């Protein structure tokens, strides 16, 4: 995937990626923002799909549902 974005759900555990965009409605987007998931932030996937993911963002461990991880585009 040269240069393109991919959904967070496709990232393998242990990989570090940068958040590029969130394809979701206004409510969900601002909720994720306030939890520190804003564009440009670096995140490390601790546990990947299938099933819910665990990502390390700004020294916080977040659990994310798989459906949500599909909507988070990273590079």
């Amino acid at each position, binding site marked *: 995937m040269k240069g393109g974005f991919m959904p967070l759900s496709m990232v393998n555990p242990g990989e570090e990626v940068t958040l590029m965009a969130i394809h979701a409605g206004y409510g969900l987007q601002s909720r994720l923002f306030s939890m520190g998931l804003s564009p440009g932030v670096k995140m490390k996937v601790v*546990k990947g799909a299938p099933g819910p993911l665990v990502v390390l963002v700004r020294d916080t461990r977040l659990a994310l549902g798989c459906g949500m991880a599909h909507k988070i585009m990273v590079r």
Partner: protein
Amino acid sequence: MDRREILDQVRKSSEHLKGIFDDEVETIVVDRRYGFINGIYKRAVSRPAIERLSASDKIDRIVLNRVLGIPIFLFLMWLMFKFTFTLSEVPMGWVESGQEWLGNVCSRFFPEGSAFQSLVVEGIIGGVGSVIIFVPIIFLLFFCMAILEDSGYMARAAFVMDRFMHKIGLHGRSFIPMILGLGCNIPGIMACRTIDQERDRLTTILVNPFMSCGARLPVYALLIGAFFPEKGGTVLYSIYILGIAMAIIMAKIFRKYLFPGPTAPFVMELPPYRMPTIKGVIIHMWERGVLYLKKAGTIILAGCVLVWFLGNFPWNPEYSKDYDRLKQEAMSDLASGLIMKEAMDETIANLESEQAREKMEKSYLGHLGRIIEPVVKPLGFDWKIGVGLFGGFIAKEIVVGTLGTLYAVGEADEESAPLRERIQKDTWPDGKKIYTPLTAFTLMVFTLLYMPCVAAIGVIYRETNSWKWPLFAAGYTTAVAWIVSFIVYQGGKLIGLG
């Protein structure tokens, strides 16, 4: 400034910021906020230069594993109940003998046969005492739960269960109120506030009563102690798992028929693992456990006194036989040499227990029991259990308190035996035992599932702001309880268990 001006200013400012940064205002605010946090953090915290795989990551890799996650959760739960049950046996014995001693002292202290002696020994010591006995088990269970919570595992449990919860149309977040419900349903129901979608929130509230709270533990502990002494931990575990399973099944049904709609997205913060401190765990255990003690001294005390009153009055009912005259006759038979001493003692003892039984059947409680009995008979319960379950609506411990009071009545002048032994011996009029292991298990199932206590109903009303949901919750849980108990009892009898 009036409101319009403020709103105008907000709009103007956000347009202005958008012009400068070329981005949405939310994004800018979040970026700045975390930038600010980062700045302070960099100045205040120093950390090793080499980034290593932290201990939390390592533990998470195993605990959150796709295959191992659920078995690990189930195993930890089992360990918790095994530990609680095994370790509580000894201190429970102490409390029990202390209570027996107190009962015997008090029955000598008050005038024999007086209503006051009966109130203190049967009503208060028999009723409240039978609830107090289980303090050690409650504290130990809360101790274990505090360890799991403080270590950070409970949040992982929600994560692990997300896959399950997803299948039923809820997400892992709904599992947290359910886990809290294991302590007490009231904080569990209140914790549903953090669920932002209304249909998810209502579903989670409505199934929360199936999570077996601490107040139900005395009922299990009594029955397990009497009928499953060897397999205590496992039986207890199976009851808790049944509660979780029923909650999940009902949630699935509600989500499908009552509140259809897509599943809300799941985001949750996982705290890092920490070694729980002794002090923290003890404080957590104490805070919750002490509520149990307070309840025993207030609402359960009141409930037991009420049960004692209803079970003892009218104080001198009209008996079908003249017991006093029959006793006199037996004594004069001995005097005139017609019967031996043993025969007389036996006749008198039989007469006394017959009288006690008749007195209770003619009491207000006996009348109430007769109304309830047909409803609970198909589940293998007698009217005493029926009355206990009826009282359990006030607080579930009262099921045990009522039985404690009912079985203490009419036996105050004898050495008081523990309630556990009394229920083992009780029989139907035809001589068959009322309590078999199957009845005991059915009673545990019924207690687990039926109508939430009055306080929980009140909280459901407050949280949903209508009487519709609390009444619905009370009705459907009782229906489910009856049906499941019926299947367990009649099914068990069919395969020859009872």
